[in-house]
């Protein structure tokens, strides 16, 4: 035991004998928090992927509440159990680091998915989409919906969520640099902590504090649903635009009643699936996580590890009245 | 007292052979009592004889293990307080049981408040009814006031009003006079007699024999949890009753011995507390017993509290053995040699759930510390020594004081203060609710302490005690000292005059 983090090189030596597929490998998923519908879809894909990729046992463990430190004991227990691959969506990029380092010292491969850890602490990060793409699609949607001008606000999840903050950063850059958006003004960023009631009241507060608000971006499934619920039950329905990242099943009624016109998301199941395949490739020694490594994610085809150990799953989909009934997640 | 036929009156209630145990403690072995309509029965017995336990059985608080109950000619059993109430039994307990957050009126009528047409409580009528009751008792009290902060005497008066308002067929009073002064006692007796004449049966418990002899028609005596005998009051002497109670003869009640007076130990100068008392000055010398007399509410307890530092003082100074005492600091008072036996042992004197040993040693916790850590064996030893000296009836040093009888609890309080070997001992109502045997023992003890050079300030509402014990009597009235009487000047008349004659105030 010891040091804060291990150098990336160390993981190579601890890896299994190169190339030969392990048949008794174990994999454990540690989502941000159990009992979250989005997570559930991701994990559904993950479990199927793990089976298809050849893991002998698949486990899902995780905290009931998404606080920074709550994942650490789970990682510890997995380290002790000798799990071969840990797939984690970090609540805090750094809080889990030393625990992950210990897991790696004990021989586990670490795949971050959904929300990245500090890059030093994992082998690869499976990202839904290119972070910038996600950000741009949301600014584009909101711009369309408010007619290219007016005040907008962002309702995010927790203040520290790595993925959220990265998207928000890109959105802000985009709004500042893109001449098409010069009349759009971002007036507030608020956090609903991925809690339905809290997000609901944050949305309400936004509208009261900013009477001229034209649109809201909520890049989190809980936030967008709660905001939609508030809008649909208030006088702002149809007057204030809402977009962001949502689950079609949660958003269907709001799209149909006109509260929301368009929103985006990738296929969460694919995210889980690719993560499982990446984990298997790491355990087998097929890849080490350096840029240029390639692995096959079953039916989803070949994926390449990019700079910084990044693996991209696929482009986001935009959902609206026309296509939403085709999706079931 | 023309009630010669009283024992032929209808039997209102009888209890035979009631037994009550608390775990291994036998609180009552043979509780037997017979109450007839239109009589006042007194119940006498030493501390721990089981009187209060018997009362609680009559009240339905405790279910007896065995025993036979007959009320109005019918066998019955009280499973709850409501059962006994339904049978017309009303009880004033030894310790007042008021609800401090409720108004005085509501305290009296709780559970049976008058209702208006809507079925809701009629607060106005309730207050009016309460005011009527107080008028009948002759006490000025605001029925709308919250009961919080009332003196024990006032609380007891409310209890009495409550019991009377129930128009009970059977009224049980467990030491109702312990907190009352002469005038209030007289008033209570007047009410009790009129209730009796209206046909109620009254059970009255008191340790004061003059009250017992004055009020009762018959007297039942208990000892060690058993029934001993019942006498007609007019046929019996106090000596006989005392013999029944203790099983032996008791000599003088107040064995006052002369002690040589030494230096001034406690000096109080122009002490004042706004709205409560002012200009209180006196001295107590080593070996001297000074009694602070007065009517209930005269401010005696408040003076003592201010001296000891429980309450802040607004003016004046207190000096112990030549050293000025800082205000509002009881620990400093203890360190400089004051001990204070408070009037309410249950709330102020004891930590009820702690053992006898811990309670006794609580005042000495710093003395038993070695390098900051307490020596538990020395603590127990000291506690045992003092408990033995005071003859506390307890099965072990580890028994919780809550399971002792009132008198034995008082002994533990005394033990805990005597263990500090104080220079000055303030005793507020030293024998409140204490039986004769213990009482004379407490008096002997106080004398002995004075004999050893302790300065003693005694607050007492019992005139005989004051006159019998004190070297000097200070009389308070309405927050002022109205008289300083030497032992030979102090007579019941002179004390009462100073305690009541407000027009003579000239200090």
């Amino acid at each position, binding site marked *: 035991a010891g040091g804060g983090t291990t150098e990336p090189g160390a993981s190579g030596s601890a890896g299994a004998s190169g190339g030969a597929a392990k048949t008794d490998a174990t994999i454990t998923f540690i989502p941000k928090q*159990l*009992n979250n519908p989005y*997570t559930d879809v991701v994990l559904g894909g993950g479990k199927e992927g793990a089976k298809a990729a050849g893991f002998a046992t698949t486990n899902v463990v995780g905290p009931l*509440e998404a606080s920074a430190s709550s994942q650490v004991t789970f990682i510890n227990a997995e380290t002790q159990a000798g799990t071969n691959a840990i797939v984690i969506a970090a609540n805090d990029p750094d809080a889990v680091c030393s625990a992950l380092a210990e897991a790696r010292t004990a021989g586990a491969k670490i795949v971050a998915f959904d929300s990245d850890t500090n890059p030093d602490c994992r082998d690869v990060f499976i990202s839904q989409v290119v972070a910038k793409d996600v950000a741009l699609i949301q600014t584009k949607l909101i711009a369309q919906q408010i007619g290219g001008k007016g005040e907008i606000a962002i309702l995010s999840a927790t203040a520290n969520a790595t993925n959220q903050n990265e998207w928000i950063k890109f959105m802000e850059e985009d709004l500042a640099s893109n001449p098409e958006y010069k009349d759009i003004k971002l007036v507030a960023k608020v956090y609903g902590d991925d809690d*339905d*009631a809290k997000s*609901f*009241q944050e949305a*309400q*507060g936004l509208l*009261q*504090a900013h009477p001229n608000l034209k649109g809201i971006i909520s890049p989190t499934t*809980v936030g967008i*649903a*709660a905001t*939609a*619920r508030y809008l649909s039950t*208030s006088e702002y329905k149809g007057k204030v635009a809402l977009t962001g990242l949502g689950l079609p*099943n949660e958003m269907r*009624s709001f799209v149909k009643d006109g509260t929301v016109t368009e929103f985006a998301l990738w296929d969460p199941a694919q995210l889980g699936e690719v993560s499982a395949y990446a984990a298997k490739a790491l355990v087998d020694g097929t890849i080490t996580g350096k840029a240029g490594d390639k692995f096959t994610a079953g039916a989803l085809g070949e994926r390449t590890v990019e700079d910084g150990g990044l693996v991209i799953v696929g482009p986001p989909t935009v959902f609206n009245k026309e296509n939403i009934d085709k999706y079931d997640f | 007292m023309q009630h010669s036929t009283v024992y032929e009156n209808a039997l209102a209630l009888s209890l035979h052979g009631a037994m009550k145990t608390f775990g291994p403690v036998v609180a009552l072995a043979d509780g037997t009592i017979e109450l007839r309509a239109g009589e006042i029965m007194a119940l006498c017995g030493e501390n721990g004889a089981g009187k209060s336990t018997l009362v609680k059985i009559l009240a*339905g*608080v405790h279910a007896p293990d065995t025993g036979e109950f007959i009320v109005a000619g019918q066998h019955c059993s009280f499973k*709850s307080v*409501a059962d*006994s*109430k339904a049978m017309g039994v009303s*009880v004033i*307990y030894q310790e007042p*049981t*008021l*609800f*401090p*957050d409720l108004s005085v009126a509501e305290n009296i009528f*709780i*559970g*049976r408040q008058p209702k208006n047409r*809507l079925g809701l*409580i009629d607060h106005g009528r309730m207050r009016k009814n309460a*005011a009527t009751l107080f008028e*009948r008792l002759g006490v*000025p*009290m*605001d029925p709308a*006031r919250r009961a919080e*902060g009332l003196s024990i005497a006032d609380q007891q008066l409310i209890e009495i009003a409550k019991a009377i308002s129930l128009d009970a067929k059977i009224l049980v009073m467990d030491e109702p006079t312990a907190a009352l002064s002469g*005038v*209030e006692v007289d*008033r209570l007796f007047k009410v009790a007699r009129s209730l009796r004449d209206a046909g109620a049966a009254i059970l009255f418990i008191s340790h004061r024999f003059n009250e017992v002899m004055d009020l009762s028609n018959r007297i039942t005596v208990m000892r060690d949890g058993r029934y001993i005998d019942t006498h007609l009051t007019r046929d019996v002497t106090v000596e006989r009753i005392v013999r029944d109670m203790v099983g032996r003869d008791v000599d003088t009640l107040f064995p006052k011995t002369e002690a040589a007076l030494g230096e001034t130990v406690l000096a109080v100068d122009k002490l*004042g507390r*706004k*709205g*409560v008392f*002012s*200009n209180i000055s006196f001295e107590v010398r080593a070996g001297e017993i000074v009694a602070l007399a007065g*009517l*209930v509410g005269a401010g005696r307890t408040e003076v003592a509290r201010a001296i000891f530092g429980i309450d802040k003082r607004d003016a004046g100074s207190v000096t112990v053995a030549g050293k000025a005492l800082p205000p509002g600091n009881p620990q400093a008072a203890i360190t400089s040699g004051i001990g204070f036996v408070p009037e309410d042992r249950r709330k102020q004197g004891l930590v009820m759930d702690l053992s006898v040993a811990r309670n006794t040693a609580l005042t000495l916790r710093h003395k038993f510390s070695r390098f900051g850590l307490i020596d538990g064996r020395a603590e127990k030893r000291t506690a045992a020594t003092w408990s033995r000296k005071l003859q506390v009836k307890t099965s072990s040093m580890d028994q919780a004081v809550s399971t002792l009888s009132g008198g034995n609890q008082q002994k533990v309080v005394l033990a805990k203060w005597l263990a500090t070997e104080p220079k000055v001992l303030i005793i507020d109502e030293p024998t409140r609710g204490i039986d004769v045997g213990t009482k004379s023992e407490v008096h002997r003890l106080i004398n002995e302490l004075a004999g050893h050079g302790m300065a003693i300030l005694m607050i007492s509402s019992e005139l005989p005690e004051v006159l019998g014990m004190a070297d000097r009597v200070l009389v308070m*009235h*309405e*927050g002022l000292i109205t008289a300083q009487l030497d032992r030979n000047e102090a007579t019941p008349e002179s004390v009462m005059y100073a305690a*009541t004659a407000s027009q003579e105030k000239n200090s």
Partner: protein
Amino acid sequence: MSSPSHGTLNRAPASKGLGPHTSGLGAFLKLRELPVTVALVALVIITTIANPLFLSPQGMKDLMLNATIMMLLAAGQTMVIVTRNIDLSVGSILGLVAFGTGTIFSSMPNMPIPLVLLIGIAFGAVLGAFNGLLTVWAKVPSLVITLGTLYVFRGLNNAWAGPKQHFAGDRPEAFGNLSVDTVLGMPIITLLAVIVVIILAIFMSGARQGRDLYAIGSDPEAAKLFGINVSRRVFTAFLINGSLAGLAGVLYASRFNAVGATTGSGLELDVVAAAVVGGVAIFGGSGTVIGAAIGAILLNTITSSLTALRVDKFWQQAIVGVLIITAILIDRLASLRHAKNLREKEGRNV
């Protein structure tokens, strides 16, 4: 009684000016609810001046809706606190009932709404009864029991719901509209809550059983000696509190989008805080349902108004904390002053 005047207690000057009829204004000024009400009114006025939107129809509606659930919970909690007990499990009860409501509608979308309300109340009552039973039967402190059931009920909710959440879209529109449509300018669920609170307030101040609760909290031992059926009354308080939490759970499902395993977690301390701000003494014996309800409104309003005033959101929680402490301080100072007055008025002229 006309005994000689020198023989009486001579406390005549004491009760002067303190007759049974205290003046109306005086009584009003002594109301424990007064400070919190003044604070609420002042807050609303100041906020409205700064941001007129605050009292727009939508703003009003939101304010009322926000306070509705907390108001019910605080009123119920008051009943329990007055008896010198506490119920920390209300958040978990609310969660279970809210999820139950979602479940009912997703499997039986046509269930009549009043029936669902009754089922929710009954469900809450059962859970509250469980708390009450344990507290009175085992004679153990309710803080420990309900801290235990806080965990147990939450655990059950997690086990039952798992990752499943029910969304507003699964519920009948009419049900959701309870928190949208207004009657007399009040959203229906708010109206419901207000009626419940008023009934409870009348019960607590005007019914013997209600007064018994105060007596119990004032001195439980005395209440027992007096023959009040303490167990039954305390049990009832828990039961009613549970029912109100149940009702709040159903209303929660009407108003919010998602109900699931974590719905309502962490509410308990907010509820207690609302009661305390509303002047309910934490050790029982005093405080009113109305006060608690106003406390709940105040706590909810302060969050809204800080947002409306665009106060940095990082400061908001700190300000709520300061408010709670101020409320207790004011209450304390008032009672100290009252005690001092009593000493000086009832005491003598020395």
